[in-house]
């Protein structure tokens, strides 16, 4: 039986256990570096045990004020929740509508370089900034309320769909596209018959996934004034109505969980 790897020389009676980082100096440098960083970071952030312990009675006070949750002002919860739902639905739809051409533009196999760069740039900007930041900017630009919120989610969704769909488009079978081109069809028809049939299942899955994400996002961008149940949440904090806060939180958690279940189930059925 030939050994696949050559053995090391004759064994001594001592054995050094293998380390993650074999080189002695690198290993200790990393360890010390890590310890130093932890020490620096915790002092820079002013983290210490005393502050933590100090916070515990406040935590207890907070929790006791949250429980039991108060659904007294349930109309606010319902209206906020519905507004979040509407924002999520509309923005997902428009997001897909915009996202598809963006995706086509961002696919190297379908577009000229200037369109490609432009689309990729748009995708980069919309995906780099967290939704909340986009929300703040839009609120400042367009005023408080669901309009800014919907636009925020449209921007985020179009970038999301654009990027992921573009990845899929770049992966398609070029043979099918070629065949359609060979019939003399041009531009839109090639897209319709050659490209879309291949990416449609994934697009539907992405749309459902994005709807789920948008619903989550729509519940919190209200914190910065962009509509939805988030603003009710924020105001309850400011007014110390912590039992109302808990009620809203529970509703948000329920909405998110239901959305996730429905979304996973639907996507499972489609694939």
């Amino acid at each position, binding site marked *: *039986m030939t050994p696949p790897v050559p*053995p*090391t020389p004759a*064994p001594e009676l*001592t054995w050094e256990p293998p380390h993650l980082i074999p080189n002695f100096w690198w290993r200790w440098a990393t360890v010390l570096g890590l310890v130093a960083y932890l020490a620096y970071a915790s002092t820079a952030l002013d983290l210490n045990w005393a502050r933590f312990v100090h916070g515990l009675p406040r935590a207890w006070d907070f929790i006791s004020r949250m429980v039991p949750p108060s659904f007294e002002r349930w109309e606010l919860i319902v209206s906020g929740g519905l507004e979040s739902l509407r924002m999520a639905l509309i923005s997902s739809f428009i997001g897909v509508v915009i996202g598809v051409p963006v995706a086509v533009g961002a696919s190297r196999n379908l577009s000229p370089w200037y369109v490609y760069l432009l689309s990729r740039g748009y995708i980069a900007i919309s995906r780099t900034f967290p939704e909340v930041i986009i929300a703040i900017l839009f609120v400042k630009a367009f005023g408080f309320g669901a309009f800014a919120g919907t636009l925020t989610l449209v921007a985020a969704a179009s970038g999301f769909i654009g990027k992921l769909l573009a990845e899929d488009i770049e992966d398609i079978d070029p043979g099918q596209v070629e065949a359609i081109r060979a019939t003399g069809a041009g531009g839109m028809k090639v897209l319709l018959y050659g490209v879309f049939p291949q990416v449609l299942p994934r697009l539907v899955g992405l749309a459902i996934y994005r709807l789920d994400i948008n619903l989550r996002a729509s519940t919190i961008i209200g914190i910065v004034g962009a509509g939805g149940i988030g603003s009710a949440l924020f105001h309850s904090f400011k007014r110390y109505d912590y039992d109302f806060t808990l009620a809203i939180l529970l509703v948000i958690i329920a909405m998110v969980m239901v959305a996730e279940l429905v979304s996973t189930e639907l996507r499972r059925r489609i694939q």
Partner: protein
Amino acid sequence: MLQVENLVKVYPSGERALKGCNLTIEGAQVVAMIGPSGSGKSTFIRCINRLVEPTEGRVVLDGVDVTALGMARLRRMRRQMGMIFQEFNLVERLTVMENVLSGRLGYVSFLRALLRRYPRQDIAAAFRLLERVGLAGYHNNRADALSGGQRQRVGIARALVQQPKILLVDEPTSSLDPKTSRVILRLITELAAEREIPAIINIHDVSLAQAFAHRVVGLSAGEIVFDGAPHQVSAETLNAIYGEEDWSRTIRPVTEEGEETADPPATPPIAAGVP
């Protein structure tokens, strides 16, 4: 040494894997257990160290009732039972030496295991065992870089570094080629003889069983239907165990290299309850 009394195992699905098995092993015997797939060989051997919990029955090792022990004492008892597996079951990402030393886990503290500071005698024993199984110099190789036969040798070393009182071997050669299988089986039986400990070996190759074991036990559908010397395994026996077949090719041990004979190993063990 080892007494198995009325061992019964019923799985939650209702399957009766073992229907009351009795086995007694005295002295340093190599016992081969043969039988078709699903006959309960794996279940039987795992009931001895309670990797599978028996439904009824007793297992007594060296006077200690294994089946009645609580978890902590069971673990101490397991240290004395070395197990060798069909799929080798080495921790792939660890080196050969770490795998062999893991046999001593029952003896060292968690802290030592964490820092991998095993006692010097353990390391020395590991080196000796690696040399004995023919893997000298391989101690720093990663387990997943070895061939099947080499991995099984590490498995053997791991079982033996426990300094066990008995070897439980579950189909050690099913994943190996015929030549390697003989080498591995010879290694196991030689080591068991050197340390004067008994070994129970599950094996489906009847000719190998006859060539290397002192005693053959046949299991069929959860019951022991044969218990005797290798040369007593006849066509009728195999019919009882496996069902009707032309057994003429299977019974004679194959003498390819001319080194195998039909006789059992040189040192005769104390004969167990052979009918």
